[in-house]
């Protein structure tokens, strides 16, 4: 009963840095709390009413003391702020070669899907030593993808994509929680993150029954929802080809002038759900809206497909 943990595992590369900052802050807290308590107890004891300690001309203000206890905390706080800000930026900026995983939060379960196609509920298998980048969205309310052992957390918002990245550094099984209150089974909406050897991970990934990769499933949906009818070149409808579009700026007609928007997840998702909001210059806004017809996981698959053909040149 008594072998309960007092400190979480350090299972990601960033964990050590966050803990170092935490211990620094803990040190400051401990030092100042102890100092104040010792001072108070000392003064209370030494200058108690009956004691005969000397109480001549007690100071009621001293500029030097004030400067010390304004300047001191100010310096400590500036160091903590800059240290935390640098670390925060590092936690924000995902490396380019990260493994893509798509997460959809739904009321009271996590649906994770690897770009190679394997999907899982309330579980996430990740290889050791490779940065993983999660692109996440929610189908209903705000959730929050929280892995304490990796010291990472990111709210998952409906109607928007949010990103988080980490690099596992220790094999094992770690808790996955939902940290933003989301309704009845908020406490049941969690699971496990398995960090596996890279070789083991590849086997797990290509296990039988995993089916097509996300891009292939996306292509199937691309045909199924008749996107291919227009976007793969047709005589009747004049629609932009989607090869070589992902990740590059596209010219968008904004009233009279034209501005360039990056064709990223947000832009493609908005163009599928609300096609008339950012129409590519030189094209008519005739595309129907797919709002409410395509579910979030399918959207992610279609976008993964468009991303996969992003590298190829448009072939007529």
């Amino acid at each position, binding site marked *: 009963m008594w072998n309960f943990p007092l400190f979480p595992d350090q299972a990601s590369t960033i964990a050590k840095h966050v803990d170092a900052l935490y211990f620094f802050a803990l040190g400051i807290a401990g030092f100042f709390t102890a100092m104040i308590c010792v001072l108070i107890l000392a003064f209370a004891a030494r200058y108690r009413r009956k004691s005969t300690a000397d109480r001549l001309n007690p100071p009621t203000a001293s500029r030097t003391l004030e400067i010390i206890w304004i300047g001191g905390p100010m310096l400590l706080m500036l160091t903590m702020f800059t240290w935390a800000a640098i670390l925060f930026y590092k936690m*924000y*900026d*995902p490396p380019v070669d990260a493994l893509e995983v798509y997460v959809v939060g739904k009321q009271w379960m996590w649906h994770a899907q690897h770009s190679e196609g394997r999907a899982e509920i309330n579980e996430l298998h990740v290889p050791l030593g490779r940065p993983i980048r999660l*692109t*996440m969205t929610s189908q209903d309310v705000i959730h929050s993808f929280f892995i304490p052992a990796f010291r990472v957390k*990111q709210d998952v*918002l409906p109607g*928007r*994509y*949010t*990103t988080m990245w980490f690099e596992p550094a220790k094999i094992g099984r770690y808790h996955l929680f939902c940290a933003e209150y989301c309704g009845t089974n908020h406490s049941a909406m969690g699971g496990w993150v398995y960090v596996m050897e890279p070789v083991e991970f590849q086997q797990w990934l290509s296990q039988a029954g995993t089916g097509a990769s996300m891009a292939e499933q996306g292509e199937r949906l691309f045909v199924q929802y008749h996107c291919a009818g227009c976007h793969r070149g047709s005589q009747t409808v004049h629609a932009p080809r989607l090869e070589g579009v992902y990740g590059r700026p596209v010219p968008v007609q904004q009233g009279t002038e034209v501005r360039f928007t*990056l064709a*990223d*997840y*947000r832009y493609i998702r908005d163009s599928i759900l609300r096609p008339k909001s950012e129409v590519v210059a030189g094209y008519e806004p005739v595309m129907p809206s797919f709002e409410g017809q395509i579910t979030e996981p399918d959207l992610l698959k279609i976008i993964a497909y468009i991303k996969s053909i992003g590298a190829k040149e448009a072939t007529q």
Partner: protein
Amino acid sequence: MSGHVVSVRTNITIFVALLILLFATVGAAYLPLESLHLPLALTIAAAKAVLIGLFFMHLYYRHHLTWIVSVASLLWLGILLALTLSDYLSRGWLDIPGK
């Protein structure tokens, strides 16, 4: 018994000034100056608000405390707007979705 009595002539002139500013702001809206519309409209509206405040609301003759209260409330509105917009306007700078 207290407070300065504002003469009718001052009141009328302030009213006329306000009308002029109103027609100025409506006129300015029809001029083709795209990006300047909002700042211009806000400065004219601020000018009208100052006129009303100073003369109709007797700020000009009143104790300095009421000045501080009126300016403080606008300052707090500014804090709310500035820091909220700082979030929205700085959203797209990193090309990471959702950051």
